[in-house]
């Protein structure tokens, strides 16, 4: 008998509980919200899932993203990136579960609140998700443009990058110790794991060390030879044979030649080798060009070094060639019989500038956009033939895929072939014209000669030293690259010309584009070319030293031209 009341109580409790449960199921089923039917989990409020993620020190980029995500994104996209599922909604405190009806931060709905899209918030993690983004750059652009919902576009670029890193982490794409940026994001795919290469610095520094030791050894050898015990019995090799058996010592003085011609050849060789290497990974299509460059820099082992070597050698080459031109003018060396070779050299300078410009355009990133448009439109201003030249260079009525293919072909084939022929011809003419300019034998004060063994030794030594300098520079200073071209960033992109054409950009501000942008630069080249034919030349006995009196006018003119170009370049660089 005493058991009955207990039994009745149990029955009442069970039925009551069932009624209550039924009622609450009814209640929670009412909001017509996109529900993941697969995850109709028991409604549970779980404070732990809503807690702020612990701070990590030092924070990785994704850790910063985790904090931002918690504050701004998690309410809709879920603690695991599952999106606004029923299961996620039920982990909230009951009276906050339907804020998508009342508006979030809902007491003052709709003034400062917002409605969650009726379609719900999509899942952002898991297989098959984020299908429309192929790389981190695209994901970042989307986040920055469209997120958060209140209001879109309010994130800084940096916040959007850390969120990108966090979303990648939610998708099991860990990027330990790597910082996503505008200049590497497009190299990081969303849908597959990548291996970040090991640092290239230790290997490169070992190479630099070995090269420095080599330079010391070479220097000792050369000094040894200079002491008089030159091994004439040694069989000359191929490289010795490229030189005369011996040359007057004054032709090989570094303070006379600056080693500029030899350095230019060396830099050209670096460009040839590194350029060939880049061609293995570079993809010359508008959609892939910038991405492939970023891939070379970010993911290919030693790719960053290779690209930096290519870039910096090209920039140094322009400087070295200008110094070479200045040397030849300020020593009067360009006079007959060397005036034809002087023209070949000028032609080479033009070729190298064109190679630098086409190479710059091959990046096909935000940075080149306006320089390409301006450069191409300059061609249109040429009277009569302008439209034809534009069509020939651009391959259409505006820059597009054909432009990139043409620039690529010119860069790796047409211009490279032309420049190679000119280099060989120029070097041949140096020897044909009697070597580097010195007075005739009867006028020479110094009778010493050096053998080709010593000459080659000095050349190799110079190359090794230059190699160390270019290597170290390339390790320290990254070559510029920006994000792929997209319509969104058209306004913010850099509108400056590459540095070697900044002077032309400054001239263009003066007025008529043809007069200042095409005619004037061409006139400069023509004036330089006419020097040996029009102005008085240095006398033969004055050769072999700086600032001979015979060609003072030409010296002044060229120094003036170069100073003006330099001033315009500096002006263009600082006016930004």
């Amino acid at each position, binding site marked *: 008998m005493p058991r009955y009341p207990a039994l009745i109580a149990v029955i009442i409790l069970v039925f009551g509980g069932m009624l209550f449960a039924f009622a609450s199921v009814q209640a929670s089923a009412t909001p017509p919200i996109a529900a993941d039917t697969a995850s109709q989990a028991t409604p549970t409020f779980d404070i732990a899932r809503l807690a702020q993620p612990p701070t990590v020190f030092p924070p990785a980029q994704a850790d910063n993203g985790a904090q931002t995500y918690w504050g701004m994104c998690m309410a809709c996209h879920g603690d695991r990136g599952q999106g606004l599922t029923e299961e996620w909604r039920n982990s909230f405190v009951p009276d906050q579960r339907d804020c998508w009806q009342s508006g979030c931060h809902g007491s003052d709905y709709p003034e400062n609140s917002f409605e969650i899209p009726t379609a719900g918030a999509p899942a952002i993690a898991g297989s098959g998700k984020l299908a429309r983004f192929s790389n981190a750059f695209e994901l970042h652009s989307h986040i920055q443009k469209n997120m958060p919902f209140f209001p879109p576009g309010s994130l800084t670029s940096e916040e959007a990058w850390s969120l990108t890193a966090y979303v990648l982490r939610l998708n099991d794409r860990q990027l330990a110790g790597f910082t996503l940026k505008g200049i590497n994001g497009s190299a990081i795919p969303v849908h597959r794991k990548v291996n970040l290469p090991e640092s290239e610095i230790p290997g490169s520094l070992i*190479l630099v060390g070995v090269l420095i030791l*080599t330079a010391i*050894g070479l220097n000792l050898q050369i000094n040894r030879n200079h002491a008089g015990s030159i091994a004439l019995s040694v069989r000359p090799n191929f490289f010795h044979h490229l030189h005369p058996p011996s040359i007057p010592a004054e032709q090989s003085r570094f303070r006379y030649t600056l080693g500029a011609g030899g350095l230019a050849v060396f830099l050209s060789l670096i460009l040839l080798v590194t350029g060939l*290497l880049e061609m293995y990974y570079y993809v010359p299509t508008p959609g892939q060009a910038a991405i492939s460059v970023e891939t070379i820099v970010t993911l290919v082992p030693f790719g960053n070094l290779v690209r930096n070597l290519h870039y910096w050698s090209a920039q140094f080459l322009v400087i070295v060639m200008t110094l070479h031109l200045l040397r030849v003018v300020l020593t009067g060396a360009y006079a007959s019989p060397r005036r034809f070779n002087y023209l070949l050299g000028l032609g080479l300078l033009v070729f190298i500038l064109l190679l630098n410009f086409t190479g710059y355009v091959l990046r096909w990133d935000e940075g080149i956009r306006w320089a390409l448009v301006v450069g191409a439109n300059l061609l249109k201003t040429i009277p009569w033939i302008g439209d034809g030249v534009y069509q020939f260079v651009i391959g259409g009525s505006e820059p597009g895929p054909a432009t990139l293919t043409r620039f690529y072909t010119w860069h790796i084939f047409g211009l490279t072939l032309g420049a190679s022929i000119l280099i060989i011809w120029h070097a041949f003419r140096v020897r044909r014209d009697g070597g580097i300019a010195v007075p005739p034998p009867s006028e020479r004060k110094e009778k010493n000669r050096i053998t080709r063994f010593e000459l080659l030794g000095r050349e190799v030594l110079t190359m090794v030293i230059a190699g160390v300098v270019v290597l170290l520079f390339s390790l320290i200073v990254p070559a510029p690259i920006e994000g792929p071209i997209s319509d969104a960033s058209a306004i913010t992109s850099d509108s400056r010309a590459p540095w070697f054409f900044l002077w032309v950009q400054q001239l263009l501000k003066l007025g008529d584009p043809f007069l200042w942008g095409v005619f004037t630069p061409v006139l400069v080249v023509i004036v330089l070319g006419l020097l040996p034919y029009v102005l008085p030349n240095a006398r033969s006995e004055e050769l072999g030293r700086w600032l001979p009196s015979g060609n003072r006018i030409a010296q002044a003119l060229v120094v003036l031209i170069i100073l003006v170009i330099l001033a315009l370049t500096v002006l263009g660089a600082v006016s930004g």
Partner: protein
Amino acid sequence: MNETPYLSRRDFIKFSTHALFGLAGLLGLGGLVRYFSYLPDPGPPTEFDLGDVASYPVGSRSLRLDIPAVIHNREGEIVAYSLICTHLGCTIENDGDEFACPCHGSRFDKNGVVLKGPAQRPLQKLRVNVLEDNTLRLYTDGGRK
């Protein structure tokens, strides 16, 4: 010049310099090998979801040309064969109950056995798993079962 049985200073410097030059070259070569070690292409996918088990009834043979593979329900046991010819990799075509390669004329029966050369090996059998939710997943890298 003095004849000396020992390595002279000059020879030592010359030898060391050459050795260092060679070492620099080797280092460069090592870097080059590393440079070329990067694989830009992740390769084709190796897992394919085939959908519900029920859509492959007993006795059915379904072609999936995107894999490419044939999925065959052989009396309740689901087997899959790659449609890549084992001769030189062309995609073979369904020809009645058999398969024919359009490139060099190899023929295979419905169980992948070579009927006619030049192919030597039978078609690759692909692993198919039934997942928890009763859907099928096919693996092209699983090799022969």
